[in-house]
């Protein structure tokens, strides 16, 4: 029996209409629609596009909280073995919609999801690593290779065949690493890479070095006595018993603690769960990474305007740069929303 495939499209590719219909609520169509015909052709007899969910891009962007569950339920009803979304090319809202639908389907149904996005589509940033995104061109002119790629990788996933590396298979890297035996030892490969470099030939690093941002320095604080100061730490200070379950490495969360009424960080109330250093000195006296004792006194003396009542804390240990970037942005927004004008961040 053929595998069952559900397809997600926006209002344009789903044949409802252009921008004027971008608010369209999700609808379910039987069988393939629009680019689904090419998808069906590429899948061949092994898999059948049994239904298509079409939804307006604005509707998904503006009302994801109720639209996304509706779309997932429609997809669930199709009892798919594979979900295909897009291709969305460089279209931002459509790409984000495909990424969101993909992540939700992964969580709710656990079936494989394939989409196709241009490498700089906003949907490609922070893509759920369970969603495989074929690298598409910028416009629908490149529809055919994108759909072929989705069909090829989709069939592999359906058959439980392992995917090759992202650059070989043509999908956006998921961050997943697979051990394999090489022909030459690391030392040999390293020397070979060095020689290539010296000869000014092309070489590919085996380790992808994360790209860091250019950070524009904030202007200086004019008057500390008029400033609301925030404290942020990645040193792993948490409430005793770690009720929020902050992980000691690869932490997935930030915690926010009220410092209202506290003159110092007491070891009775706070501890440290950072797993990347010997944390007993911080457990014995958490002021060693959260200098509340000093700052509170200076607040009372008027040296700083006000110490904001919330401490933001996490464990900065083996945290992937991408996670740090994403959550850092969220925390920065919270700090801004809280009216904090300057921050002391302690990182061990």
């Amino acid at each position, binding site marked *: 029996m053929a595998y069952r495939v559900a397809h997600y499209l926006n209002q344009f590719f789903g044949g409802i209409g252009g921008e004027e219909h971008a608010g369209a609520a999700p609808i379910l169509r039987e069988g393939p629609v629009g680019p689904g015909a090419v998808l069906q052709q590429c899948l061949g007899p092994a898999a059948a596009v049994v239904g298509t969910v079409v939804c307006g891009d604005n509707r998904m962007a503006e009302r994801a909280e109720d639209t996304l569950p509706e779309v997932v339920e429609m997809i669930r009803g199709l009892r798919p073995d594979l979900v295909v979304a897009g291709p969305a090319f460089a279209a931002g809202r459509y790409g984000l919609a495909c990424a969101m639908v993909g992540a939700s389907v992964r969580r709710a149904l656990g079936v494989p999801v394939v989409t196709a996005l241009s490498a700089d589509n906003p949907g490609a940033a922070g893509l759920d690593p369970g969603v495989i995104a074929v690298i598409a061109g910028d416009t629908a002119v490149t529809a055919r290779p994108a759909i072929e790629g989705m069909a090829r990788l989709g069939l592999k996933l359906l058959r439980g065949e392992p995917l090759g590396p992202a650059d070989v298979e043509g999908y956006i890297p998921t961050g997943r690493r697979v051990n394999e035996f090489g022909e030459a030892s690391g030392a040999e490969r390293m020397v070979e890479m060095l020689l290539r470099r010296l000869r000014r030939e092309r070489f590919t690093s085996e380790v992808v070095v994360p790209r860091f941002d250019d950070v524009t320095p*904030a202007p200086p604080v004019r008057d500390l006595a008029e400033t609301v100061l925030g404290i942020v730490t990645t040193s792993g200070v948490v409430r005793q018993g770690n009720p929020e379950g902050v992980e000691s490495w690869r932490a997935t969360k930030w915690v926010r603690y009220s410092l209202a009424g506290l003159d110092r960080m007491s070891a009775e109330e706070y501890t440290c769960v950072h797993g990347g250093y010997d944390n007993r000195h911080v457990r014995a006296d958490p002021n060693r990474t959260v200098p509340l004792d000093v700052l509170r006194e200076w607040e009372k003396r008027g040296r700083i305007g006000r110490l904001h009542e919330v401490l933001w804390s996490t464990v900065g240990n083996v945290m992937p740069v991408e996670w740090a970037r994403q959550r850092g942005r969220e925390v920065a927004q919270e700090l801004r929303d809280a009216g904090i004008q300057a921050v002391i961040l302690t*990182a*061990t």
Partner: protein
Amino acid sequence: MAYCSAIPSIPISMGVPRVLPGIAVTHLLGNPALPPADERELRERLTARALAMLTEQVAKPTLFPSA
């Protein structure tokens, strides 16, 4: 933001504008080997440096002296 780190080369290489070296990874703003009053004084000195950093104009990742 004043960024205090025991390994300041990391934030500097990541592009953090204002970086203050801490004392050690295991006791960033303190030193358990010191008597409590001296340790408190050390923390006040470092925290004062962090606040002073916030008031200074910088154009690129800058490592401030800790003393």
